[in-house]
């Protein structure tokens, strides 16, 4: 072929990447990753699972596909088909129930989120207060930081029953457990964040004869917000885990903790349900995280150049 028309147009162009492009890319990546996971999941079952039957069918139903190998971990009990899990979401969550599994899980998730949310807010506030004290008093910092760290090395599985025993069964204990797990990342991050400004800013504030509270509200706190949000994103997941563990120990009927325990107990009769519950818990974590991220983007707007992607 003769000289292509392409030679006329410049090869090198300045490409602008608008912000929306970055968001689309993130979304596409997320979807592709999810599809990849599904592919691997079903791929494994395709090669080494039990015979494939139509959705929701019993053992007598016609076989659609017979995998060449048999791997124990890939059978329908350990690794239910993805479509069976989705199918189970539409079915009543237990015999004679009037709610579908999906509705039931959403209800449980919202309940758990409420407890986690309160624990999250209280824990964040506690973390902020502690960090503020530590930043203003070296003595307090040296005295209490070891205890703060030690508090997190005690496994929550051991601590939760103690808390429930001391405070009684119920939502309060659950909130305390969620608080317990969230205050630590916030304390550590803010202890750093409240000191994270250019030291010359402090000289500047002194030249204005600014008082300590003024320095706190106008310099330390705004400077620390990026650190705060990093900690809050960690704390979000931690508070949900805390709430779920707390519910279990605290005898709460309505939350995800109970749901997961029950489905675990009756796993053999309905493995899809446990997987669905796990999915619900994961989605709850993602949604909580996304909410905090949205707040972060708003609060931190304008501060620095947008990142390259």
């Amino acid at each position, binding site marked *: 072929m003769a000289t292509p028309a392409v030679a006329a147009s410049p090869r090198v162009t300045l490409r602008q990447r608008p912000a929306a492009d970055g968001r689309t890319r993130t979304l596409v990546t997320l979807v592709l990753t999810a599809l990849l996971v599904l592919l691997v999941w079903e791929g494994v079952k395709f090669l080494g699972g039990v015979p494939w039957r139509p959705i929701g069918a019993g053992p007598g139903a016609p076989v659609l596909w017979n995998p060449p190998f048999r791997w124990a971990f890939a059978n329908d009990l350990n690794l239910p088909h993805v479509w069976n899990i989705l199918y189970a979401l539409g079915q009543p969550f237990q015999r004679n129930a009037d709610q579908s599994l999906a509705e039931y899980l959403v209800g449980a998730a919202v309940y758990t989120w409420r407890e986690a949310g309160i624990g999250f807010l209280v824990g964040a506030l506690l973390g902020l207060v502690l960090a503020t004290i530590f930043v203003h008093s070296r003595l307090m910092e040296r005295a209490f930081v070891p205890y703060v760290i030690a508090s997190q090395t005690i496994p929550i599985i051991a601590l939760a029953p103690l808390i429930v025993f001391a405070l009684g069964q119920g939502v309060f204990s659950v909130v305390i457990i969620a608080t317990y797990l969230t205050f630590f990342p916030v304390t550590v991050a803010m202890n750093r964040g409240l000191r994270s400004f*250019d030291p*010359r*800013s402090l*000289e*500047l*504030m*002194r*030249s*204005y*004869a*600014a008082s300590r509270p*003024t320095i706190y509200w*106008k*310099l330390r706190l*705004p*400077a620390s*917000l990026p650190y705060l949000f990093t900690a809050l994103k960690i704390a979000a997941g931690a508070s949900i885990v805390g709430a779920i563990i707390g519910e279990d120990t605290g005898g709460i009927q309505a939350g995800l903790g109970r749901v997961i325990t029950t489905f675990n107990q009756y796993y053999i009769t309905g493995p899809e349900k446990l997987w669905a519950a796990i999915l619900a818990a994961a989605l709850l974590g993602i949604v909580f995280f996304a909410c905090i991220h949205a707040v972060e983007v708003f609060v*931190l707007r*304008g*501060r*620095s*150049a947008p990142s390259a992607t």
Partner: protein
Amino acid sequence: MTDLTQPSADQPVVRLTGIGRVFARRDGSRMTALEAIDLDIRRGEFVSLIGPSGCGKSTLLRIIGDLIKPSSGDVVVNGKPAERARRDRDYGMVFQAPVLFDWRTVEDNVKLPLEIQGVDAAARRATAARMLELVELEDFSRHYPWQLSGGMQQRVAIARALAFEPAILLMDEPFGALDEMTRERMNSEVQRIWDRTKTTIVFVTHSIPEAVFMSSRVVVMSPRPGRIANVIDIDLPRPRDDETRESERYFELVTEVREALRGREAGHDDDDGEGLAAARRLASEGVAG
């Protein structure tokens, strides 16, 4: 107790008497940063402090601004002790880096000292607008610091320092991090601002052309320990512009400052003056015998 809130016309705005500053080193030994500094700065003057590294010029500036306390001597600013002048916010300060708050817009950065002072919102807005117009950045009031170049950020810092119309402006090598062309432009800007506001300015620099171009007086300092070696009057006509930079007198003054800086350094290699005394003795013996 009677005190002067405003010095009279013939009273200096800054009076330093016998200022000394000693720092204790980690190993316990003492380092004399400043010794026996006496200096008077009159209202409306533009005084530069120039000297090699370690001569204590930044320390001296901070002593004037009450950010460091002197080990000995007296600082009187605007008729008051330095600490009260700082609490009364009699001066503004500009550092080598702009030190802007990156979570605030340009306008909000300029408003910062006014907020701390308790000025009401309408007055803050008006003053910030006026200051930004003074440094010719009024179109950038809603921008954030990261969107501005180094020179522009420094201009915002200057606008901020002038926001509460201080009696004195202290500047510590504010243009040290800028390139030469931007620096010359900023020097002209500061000239223009000084002309309009008639603020007293104390300017620390290690650039001889900069000091000569802008000042009414250049204070040459020598190091180890920091002392005032010489004070040179700059009699260049005002307003000063690019023509000034090319004038005969400008080069003469630059040379004079350079000699003062160099001459003093040579003298100081000879700490106890023995060499000089010996030379004198030899010379007089020679003359006598």
